[in-house]
C-alpha cells in the first residue's frame, strides 16, 4: 500500500482509562493488530490527557477493520472545519 492510498483518520476510543496508561503503546498495539508490524509508523498523534483516541494514516479498509474492533467508538476521516 503506497502512502498515497492512506488518509488521515481519527480513531476515537472514549474515556481515558483510569490511572497511568501508556497511550502510545496502546495505540501502536491496536494499529499493529490491523496493519502488522509496521503499524507504529501510521500513528500521528495520541490523545490521552482527557480522553482516549489517536490520529493515524490509514487506508479505507484499515479504517473499516478498526471501526469493528472492540474498544473503538468511531473511526472517521480527519476533515477541515471552518471559522464562523
Amino acid at each position, binding site marked *: 500500500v503506497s502512502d498515497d492510498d492512506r488518509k488521515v483518520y481519527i480513531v476515537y476510543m472514549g*474515556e481515558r482509562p483510569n490511572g497511568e496508561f501508556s497511550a502510545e503503546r496502546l495505540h501502536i498495539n491496536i494499529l499493529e493488530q490491523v496493519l502488522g508490524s509496521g503499524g507504529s509508523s501510521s500513528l500521528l498523534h495520541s490523545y490521552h490527557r*482527557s480522553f482516549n483516541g489517536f490520529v493515524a494514516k490509514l487506508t479505507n479498509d484499515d479504517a473499516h477493520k478498526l471501526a469493528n474492533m472492540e474498544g473503538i*467508538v468511531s473511526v472517521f476521516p*480527519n476533515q477541515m*472545519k*471552518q*471559522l464562523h
Partner: protein
Amino acid sequence: TTRSWDFMGFSKNVIRTNLESNIIIGMLDTGIWPESESFNDEGFGPPPKKWKGICQKSSNFTCNNKIIGARYYKADKNFHPTDIQSPRDSEGHGSHTSSIAAGALVHKASLSGLASGLARGGVPSARIAVYKICWADGCSDADILAAFDDAIADGVDVISLSVGGSFAIDYFNDSIAIGAFHSMKNGILTSNSAGNSGPQLASITNVSPWSLSVAASTIDRKFFTEVKLGNGEIYKGTSINTVELKHNLYPLIYGGDAPNTKKGYDSSESRYCSEDSLDKALVKGKIVLCDSVNSGEGPLAAGAVGAIMQYYLDSAFNFPLPVSCLGSDDGTDVSTYLNTTRKPKANILKSIEEKDEQAPYVISFSSRGPNPITYDILKPDLTAPGVDILAAWSQGTTVTGYEGDNRIVPYNILSGTSMSCPHATAAAAYIKSFNPTWSPAAIKSALMTTAVPLSLETNTDAEFAFGSGHLVPSSALDPGLIYDAGEIDYVKFLCGQGYDTETVRLVTGDRSKCSDSINGTAWDLNYPSFALSATPGKSTRRVFHRTVTNVGSGVSIYKATVKAPPGLEIEVQPNLLGFKAIGEMKSFIVKVKAKIDGNNITNMMLSGSLIWDDGLHQVKSPVVAFALE
C-alpha cells in the same frame, strides 16, 4: 463590543465577584495577538492555582498574567506561507473572539473612527488560555481534538469554539461534539457558534445537547455607506467603508461594459466583477458597478477606486476598497443613471452609524434549526450579538487579509456566529464566577431560561432562528430554577438515540448500561426547551418529563403559565411547584398535543411557551412543534 454589552443591559458596572479572575476561558481559535491593549495584564496577579497548562515555547511569543497559557496544533505540519508557527494570531479571528469574551477595558477603540467607544470583554478580569487550531487552510478535526484534550486537562472553566463543519454529523463522529462531551464530563461548558449557513432550515451544524449553540443577532447600531451620484442623488447601502475618497466624484462604469477580453472574459462574467474578469484599462481610477456581491478583490486588482454592488445585505462587511451594497431598487436606479448619462459619475462615502430601532433580530446568515441529528432537541439554544462587532484584531494581517489591502488596525468590525459565541461564553463564565460548582447544564439552563424570546414579526423562522431567545447575562445570574443534567442523563439520552451499551461504556469509562428501563427519549432529557417533531396533518402527542432545581429564593411557589397558538395544546402537571429550600428539586410533566397542517411553509411551525413564575423569577422555556416531512 463598544455597543454589544450595553445593548444587552450588561454595563461595565454590573455586580462582579473577585473570583472572576480565577476563571479561565479556553479559546480554541486562530491564536491571539498578545500585544493588543485588550490583553494587557496590568492589575492581574499570577495564574490561578488550578491552572495546569503551559505557554508553548516559540519565537516572539510570550504569555502574561492575562493570557496565562498558549499552545498551537498542526498535526499535518503543512504550513501556508502566511501561517505563524506559534500561538500568535496571523488571521485576526482569534484575537477578535478572545477580546469579546475576556478583553480588558480599552477606551476610544474604533476602526478608523467607526464603532468608537469602550471596547471590553464580558468578563474582563477572566484569564485566557489560547489553543491555536485554525490556520490558513482551516481547522482540522485532529487539531480540534488535541486542543480539547489539553484544555480539559489544563483546567479551563469554559471553552469557546467558533468553528464548524459544512453539515451536522452524528455526535461521536464529530470532533467538536466529542470534545464538548468530555468537557461536560469534566464540568466544563463548551460554547459553540451555530454556523453561518442561514437562512436555510436545518443548516445548524453544532448540535450536541451537552454544548451551547449560539445564533447571531443584531445590535441597535447599524452601518450604512452612502453612494452619491453625479445627478445629486444619494443612496444608502451597507458595508464597512473606512476610506474617505479624495475627490468629490469619480467616473462610473458598469462591470459588464469592461470585460477582460484578453483573458477570454465576456460581459456575462465581468458584470459580476469576479477576479480577473475586469479590463484594467477600462476600470482603473473609476467606480465600478457590479451585479453581485463579491470580495472586492476583482475591482481592486483592476485598479478601481471603489465598487457599487447590487445585492441587499442585512449586515455590513469589510472590503479591501470602498464598497457599498445596494438593494435592488437602488441598484436599478444607479444602473438607469449610468445608462442614461453621457459621463456618469459617483462617489462612495465613508460609512456612517445609525440606530436600528428593530434590533435585535436574528441575522439572515445565522444557521437555523431544526436540529438535523436529533429533531426533538431544539437548536440553536439562544442568540447573542454577532453583527458588526468591534473587537481586537491582529497586527499580522490587514482589515480584510486580501492582497492590496494595506490597512493594519488594532480593532476591526466583524459579523458572524463566531462573534455571538464568545458573548455567550463570557456570560457562562460570568455565571460560573458566582457559582463555581454549577454544572455545564445548570449554567446553560440559566442562560436559556432568562433569554428574551424575539419578535416573530422580525424573525419569521422563530425558535429555529433564536432558540430560547436573546441572551441577557445579568438576568442569567438569578434564574430562579434550573434544568440540571449530568453525564448519566446524557447517557440515557444516547441509549435512546440508538447507541449501545458497549459504546456508552467506552465514552463514559464506567459500567453504564442501555436497557429498556434506562433508555431515555429526547423528550425526557432534562433540557430547558421543548421540541416536538410531528407528521403533517396528523395529531401528535408527547409527554416531556422534567425536573427543576431551586436556586432562587429558599421558600417559593412557582406557578406554570403556558401560551399556545391554535393547533398546539400544552398541559403542565402539576402546575404549582412549592419549594422550601435552595437546592430542592421538583419534577413535573408537560403534555403537548400538536396538529400541524403543513400544507404551506408559513404554518410548518407552532410556537408556544412555558413559564414558571414565583413573582420574582420568570423561568421561560419555548415549546415548539413543527412538521417534519
